[in-house]
């Protein structure tokens, strides 16, 4: 509906130019027959109501570009200012509970900081500027409804009054004539027209009235009036259209008078005018009465008739030529040429393409060269912007990596194997040629710790036994997958914890090992505390924020905890290998599918940050974006936490 309203608005604006010109012409053509003006008004009505336009070079309309939705989205610097929060005051972005929210959802969640940024396409929905045309469209349609209701009301009122009208058979006419109690004569019916004349009208006025109304019908004036009314309903907001409406009414009457005069002859002019005078009613007519002819402005009509003189031929010819010019010049729209578009782009006002909002980003990229005001990009020195809104990195879809529900069953099966069997069949750890028995996967001889893996027919690579001194604990872990690397272990004697990394969870493009901390109690029992992959991802994701400057191609990665800058990557400077460019900006930064651990007194976790380039699906891990490192700790309740984030420097 908003589109329709904008279309009508544009039509109204175009027609307004013509109305102004016709008004001027009307003044100039006072002495010419009013029927020519009526032709001009018909042109105006055509422009007001016909939605189809042709473009041509001979159009006389000023070639302002039509208003479209794009004029209200972004581009207004005032709207962009609303979103910028600078100098370290970032909005608290709530910790995500769900990790299966897609990237766009997360972008939408950080509302308030996004209206300034132009990168994420989904922001446009929340752009306040877009509300303006929507509200305007609603107001417009409300107005239209009111007018329609009003018109219907008048029509109903009319028909009610007409019920007691009485046919007048004294005249033998083609058109049906009725007498009624209404104050003025009028015509009803577009197709089967009927003339209604008040009871009070007698001779000699009656004949003139009859002639007048019949002339109206033969000139199809009632059609014109109806079309005018429709135009007014649609363009109610345009004051020029109101003026046109009143003037059309008047001009139509005068043109009709002239036609009547032509029929009865100039000698009867005085009598006709007298008749008009006698019929002049002081009663107020309904404004916007669709079918009645307001017999007001009688004075003007009489003046017009009395002054009417046959003009010189050449004036008539001139008028006809002018009408021709107007008709041709204004029936079509000017061509929007490319030069026009480029010119317009230099203005502060927005671009005029009719693209939908998803393509906003590329559009912005195209205009990027022209908007030099924001990033002050000089050729010598790159300014790293610190005022861009900070977005939160997203977790990749691997968060939903299959969780095997076979845990319970595996435990059962595990319990059915006795320890003797496990020890007896111990073999050296070879990943691939091990078939169905147990393997010694790792050991710490100085602490008397051994780790065995076993396998049963159905669950391949599942089941781990940890032996410390004489005690064995069993865990139904998956320790094998396509890329089998036996688990790493470290014994933290101070805390009596065995740190285990299961190197499962790897594949093309991802590496998500599992960290288990086995807390030993009295060397008998080992409690398994696992830093779940989902938890790891959430924790990483919650800490990494970023800004991307699509002008300068600068990516800043930020630790959201202290709002400290972790690294800055200037893609423009390193353009050789990376695909990031103005046409292919970064749309998302992703974390949490590549991380690894280093065991020891302080467990270190290293993770990488990747990004998505517009138009591509695969995440890119650039050699120019460094890896980050943090510490992993577990509290007394088995809760894991990560510490400060630092950059892994290449040394």
């Amino acid at each position, binding site marked *: 509906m908003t589109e329709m309203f904008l279309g009508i608005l544009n039509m109204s604006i175009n027609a307004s130019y013509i109305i102004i010109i016709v008004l001027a012409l009307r003044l100039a053509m006072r002495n010419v027959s009013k029927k020519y003006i009526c032709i001009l008004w018909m042109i105006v009505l055509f422009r007001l109501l016909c939605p189809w336009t042709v473009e041509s070079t001979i159009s006389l309309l000023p070639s302002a570009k039509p208003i479209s939705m794009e004029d209200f989205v972004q581009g207004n610097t005032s709207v962009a200012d609303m979103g910028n929060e600078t100098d370290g005051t970032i909005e608290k972005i709530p910790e995500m509970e769900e990790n299966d929210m897609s990237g766009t959802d997360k972008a939408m969640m950080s509302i308030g900081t996004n209206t300034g940024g132009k990168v994420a396409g989904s922001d446009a929905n929340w752009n306040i500027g877009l509300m303006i045309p929507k509200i305007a469209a609603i107001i417009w349609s409300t107005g239209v409804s009111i007018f329609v209701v009003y018109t219907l009301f008048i029509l109903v009122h009319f028909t009610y009054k007409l*019920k*007691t*009208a*009485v*046919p007048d058979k004294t005249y033998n006419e083609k058109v049906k004539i*009725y*007498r*009624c*109690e209404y104050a003025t004569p009028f015509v009803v019916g577009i197709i089967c027209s009927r003339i209604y004349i008040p*009871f*009070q009208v007698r001779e000699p006025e009656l004949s003139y009235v009859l002639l007048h109304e019949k002339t109206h019908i033969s000139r199809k004036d009632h059609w014109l009036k109806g079309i005018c009314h429709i135009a007014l309903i649609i363009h109610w907001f345009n004051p020029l259209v109101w003026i046109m409406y009143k003037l059309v009414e008047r001009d139509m009457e005068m043109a009709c008078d002239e036609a009547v005069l032509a029929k009865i002859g100039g000698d009867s002019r005085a009598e006709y005018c007298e008749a008009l005078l006698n019929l002049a009613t002081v009663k107020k007519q309904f404004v916007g009465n669709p079918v009645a002819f307001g017999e007001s402005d009688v004075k003007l009509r009489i003046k017009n008739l009395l002054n009417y003189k046959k003009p010189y031929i050449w004036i008539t010819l001139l008028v006809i030529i002018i009408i021709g010019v107007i008709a041709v010049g204004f029936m079509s729209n000017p061509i929007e040429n490319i030069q026009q578009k480029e010119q317009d782009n230099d203005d502060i006002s927005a671009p005029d393409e009719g693209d939908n909002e998803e393509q906003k980003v590329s559009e912005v990229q195209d205009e990027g060269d022209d908007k030099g005001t924001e990033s002050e990009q000089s050729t010598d020195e790159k300014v790293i912007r610190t005022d861009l809104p900070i977005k939160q990195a997203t977790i990749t879809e691997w968060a939903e990596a299959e969780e095997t529900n076979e845990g319970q069953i595996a435990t059962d099966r595990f319990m059915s194997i006795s320890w003797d069997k496990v020890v007896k069949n111990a073999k050296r750890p070879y990943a691939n040629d091990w078939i169905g028995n147990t393997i010694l996967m790792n050991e710490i001889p100085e602490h008397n710790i051994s780790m065995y893996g076993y396998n049963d027919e159905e669950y391949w690579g599942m089941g781990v036994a940890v032996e410390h001194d004489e005690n064995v604990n069993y865990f139904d872990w998956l320790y094998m997958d396509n890329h089998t690397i036996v688990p790493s272990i470290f014994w933290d004697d101070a805390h009596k914890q065995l740190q285990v990394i299961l190197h499962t969870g790897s594949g093309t493009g991802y590496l998500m090992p599992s960290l288990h901390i086995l807390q030993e109690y009295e060397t008998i029992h080992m409690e398994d505390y696992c830093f779940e992959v989902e938890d790891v991802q959430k924790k990483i994701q919650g800490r990494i924020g970023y800004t991307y400057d699509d002008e300068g191609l600068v990516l800043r990665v930020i630790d959201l905890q202290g709002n400290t800058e972790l690294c800055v990557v200037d893609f423009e400077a390193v353009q050789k290998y990376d695909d990031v460019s103005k046409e292919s900006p970064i749309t998302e930064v992703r974390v949490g599918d590549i991380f690894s651990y280093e065991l020891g007194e302080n467990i270190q976790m290293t993770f990488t940050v990747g990004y998505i380039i517009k138009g591509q699906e695969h995440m890119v891990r650039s050699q120019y974006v460094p890896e980050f490192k943090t510490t992993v700790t577990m509290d007394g309740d088995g809760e894991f936490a990560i510490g400060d984030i630092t950059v892994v420097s290449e040394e």
Partner: protein
Amino acid sequence: MDTPKIFESEYRFASIVWEREPILLKELIGICAKQLEWKRTTTYTVLKRLCERGILKNEDGVVTSLYSREEIQYSESKQFLDKTFNGSLPGFVATFLNGKRMSNEEIDELQTMIEAFKKDRTEE
């Protein structure tokens, strides 16, 4: 007694009743449809209006008038006279004579009427 007003279209309707009363409602509807091109509902509405005003009466499907045509005409004319000529009949006649010429027949007719009127007055 104040005679009720009547509007032009109602007058035409009442004329039909005056001409043919007492008239069956059914018949009246038919005639209105033909002569006045009125719908059934319209006839009903106007009849109801006139009955409410006390000009016509509809009893058991038969329509009669409570005021005669002359009474109504008199009332209407009197109102006009009161309004325009302050109730002065001579004033009206004088004005009327000003513009038009009366034919001999009309003069005679008027004279006869005045004579008859005078007679009635003296007889009361």
